[in-house]
């Protein structure tokens, strides 16, 4: 099974992400963003890790806020982040390290939205839906 899929939306980018547990789900979110930005495999080596810490009000907000962090760094540092390791995680807080490379992008993701998304436990793991403004 793919780790994410693109859902239909008339104007923006709606993704469904899968993971066997929450750390994998959140890392798959990072990879899905990278895949959509680049649309091909990236040769990212874990040479330079960047620390990320996010604190939110609930689990879904944590997902959106983590995505916002990735989008910000991606834009400000002109990078695509495709490697992720979650170091600590609770329902409203996470500490992760990410790594990326400078690469030409094919999609500009402006922002992650809180619109109608979710994070939920399903048979065999977790899934999340999130809408990006593009």
């Amino acid at each position, binding site marked *: 099974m793919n780790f994410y899929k*693109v859902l239909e939306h008339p*104007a*923006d980018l709606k993704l469904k992400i899968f993971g066997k547990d929450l750390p994998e789900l959140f890392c798959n979110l990072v990879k899905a963003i990278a895949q959509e930005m680049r649309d091909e495999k990236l040769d990212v080596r874990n040479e330079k890790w960047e620390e990320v810490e996010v604190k939110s*009000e609930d689990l879904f907000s944590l997902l959106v806020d983590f995505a916002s962090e990735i989008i*910000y760094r991606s834009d400000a540092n002109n990078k695509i982040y495709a490697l992720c390791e979650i170091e600590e995680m609770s329902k409203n807080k996470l500490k992760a390290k990410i790594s990326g490379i400078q690469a*030409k992008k094919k999609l*500009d993701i402006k*922002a992650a939205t*809180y619109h109608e998304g979710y994070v939920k436990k399903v048979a065999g793991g977790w899934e999340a839906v999130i809408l990006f403004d593009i």
Partner: protein
Amino acid sequence: MQKSDLKKITDYLWEIPKNRWDKMNVPARVYADEKLLEKVFEDRSMGQLVNVATLPGIQKWALAMPDIHEGYGFPIGGVAAFDLEGIVSPGGVGYDINCGVRLLRSQITFDEIKDQIVSLMNQSQRDVPSGLGSRHKEKLSDPELNKILDNGAKELVGKGIGNQNDLDHCEENGSMKDADSGKVSDRAKNRGRNELGTLGSGNHFLEIQRVDQIYDEEVAKAFGIFKNQVTIMIHCGSRGLGHQVATDYIRELLKLVQRENIWLADRELVYAPIESKEGQNYLSAMRASANFAWANRHMIAHLVHGAWKRILGDTAGSLDLVYDVAHNIAKIEEHEIEGQTKKVCVHRKGATRAFGPGREELHSDYCHIGQPVIIPGTMGTASYILVGTNEAMKQTFGSVCHGAGRTMSRKKAKRAVDIGKLRREFEKKGIILRVASRGELGEEAPVAYKDIDNVVNVVHEAGLARKVARLRPLGVIKG
């Protein structure tokens, strides 16, 4: 929701009554003819409009323009006004704060430069960074960027870039008051530091056009528009800086709303009372982002002017600003409500201000006749110049549509469009295309949008703005 839930007010106006849902504070209204109304129900935009009608302090109606389509929180093509005891919602402005359109007029006709259009396109593409991650090499320092955020295009005119006409013919004179760079995060500044004078990507574009039809000679003359004239249109916004300001404030306000357990029909409708510290901080940062967007379009116009002179020389004359309008913005304006003039906070998300004659916000060049309203078409189709009316003041808080409005997802459009065929169609029409990627061409193909002629006709027939002129593309640079 379906058509039978709507009450027909006129041939171009439909209403969802307030009693449809006990959480609605006002009715919801959509401007559309029968044909466009069918399109409206192809997505969930009407449900989103009804959600807007639940917000506290909303005045008269939650409004949707004929280019309405599904967004998040507010629909795109939405207009809502709140009294000053009410709220401001960053989601009602959107992430691309002051995305908007600027129209420049030349003094020459298409026939005079038709052999140089390709060179002009190439030079403009070289001079204006466009496409994904388009940036200048030089980064603005904090003091330089702060001045732009606080003063907008006025700051650039003060440095000898452009002239007073560029400010007179711009909504808010290109410099929104009460902007505060201090309320814009360092993160937002980092995203915008080297993006001033860049087009970006997505549906943003730079287009060289020809005036192919005049509908109202008198108004066209007042706007300096004549048949076969060459015009240039610029569509873009506040780039990454505005996106980050929206992200920062939506996140902050959502935390407050969650802590106070306030009910929201959609999280992206998150709001703060206008008079609260949080509401005021957002408005100050949003105005600063709007100023950045005006400075951005001003700078792009300056770069295009340079390309124009380089290719055509001094004999081709200057490029002057007809008008510059914002599409995504919240503004404190005076409107008549229940017979009283009242200050309200008008949110336009994918909607254009269209003030009628007599409004003091308009420069004396246009005050007697009404505001120029610039409506861009989709890639390869016509764009329009309209003029604002007093009917818009009564019905829509002085607002109209902002474009054609999407009907097809980017993914579906990419699958549906034969790129080779599309390119041949453009060639047949004599339109020169400069697009960053093949995918982008498919995503932005006219088939993915509503018919712009239909959308503009609804606005015209409803009396919200009158058609003045139609512009046909000669060349398009897509980001």
